[in-house]
């Protein structure tokens, strides 16, 4: 391995690490957003049933 390979490898690890974490975060944000939407819908449904 030459010096440039090490340089490329090192920077690759950094960007991979940062983007992996960003992907993980956005995945969790998406799932929490979906869950919140679903919970709001369920709460609305329960409230509607109890009023009728």
């Amino acid at each position, binding site marked *: *391995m030459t*010096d*440039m390979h*090490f*340089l490329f*490898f*090192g*920077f690759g*690890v*950094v960007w991979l*690490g*940062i983007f992996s*974490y*960003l992907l993980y*975060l956005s995945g*969790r*944000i998406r799932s*929490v*957003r979906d*869950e*919140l939407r679903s*919970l*709001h819908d*369920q*709460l609305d449904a*329960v*409230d509607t*049933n*109890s009023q009728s």
Partner: protein
Amino acid sequence: MQSRLQNVTTGLSFLLLLLVMGLALFAMFLFAPAERVQGDVYRLLFVHVPSAWLAFLAFGVVAFGSVLYLIRESSRWDRLAVASAELGVLFTTLALATGSIWGRNVWGVWWQWDPRLTTTLVMWFIYAGYLALRAYIDDSAIKPRMAAVAGIVGVLSVPLVWFSVEWWRSLHPTPSVTSPGGGLPGEMLLTLLICVAAFTVLYGVLLRQRMLLEQASSLTAALIERLHTRSESPPQ
């Protein structure tokens, strides 16, 4: 999940991040000259050192949030602590990885049981343990307090890592930025500072997103409780 203002702020912060990262990349590869002995591979310094410094900052913020949580008992400080702990583990991992790759090139080995490397690895384990503690406590009323105590004790490792190169004979270079007379030449130092600024903006952006996620998760749990209560109670 986020208000309009929060969306705008998020967008602006990512834009700022893009700009600063772009500037850092320019500085790293086009502004900073090659090093006399190591050539271009030394440019790993510009990601290795900021990663390590941001790890120290992150763990300091964990301790700060933990102390404030124990005093104020507001969940905002707990959210700050857990978000910063995750980022601290991320940056420590990057520092260890880039250090290992650079070390392979310079010293010929991927790892040495050297004081700085060893204490940094220990610091990684301390905060991995902090995250594991949070993961293994199910009671949400108790978890922040126990984690806060662990976060305060864990910060003791940070000065240990920082001073390890001075207290024990080490392969790792002694602090070259702050040493008088020696240290990095002007363009390299400026590049390093730009990279530290870029990583700090990255830390800030990720911290904010992670805290918002934690807040949303708490809201989810509260809604689930409310849903159970409404479902169980008789119609009014």
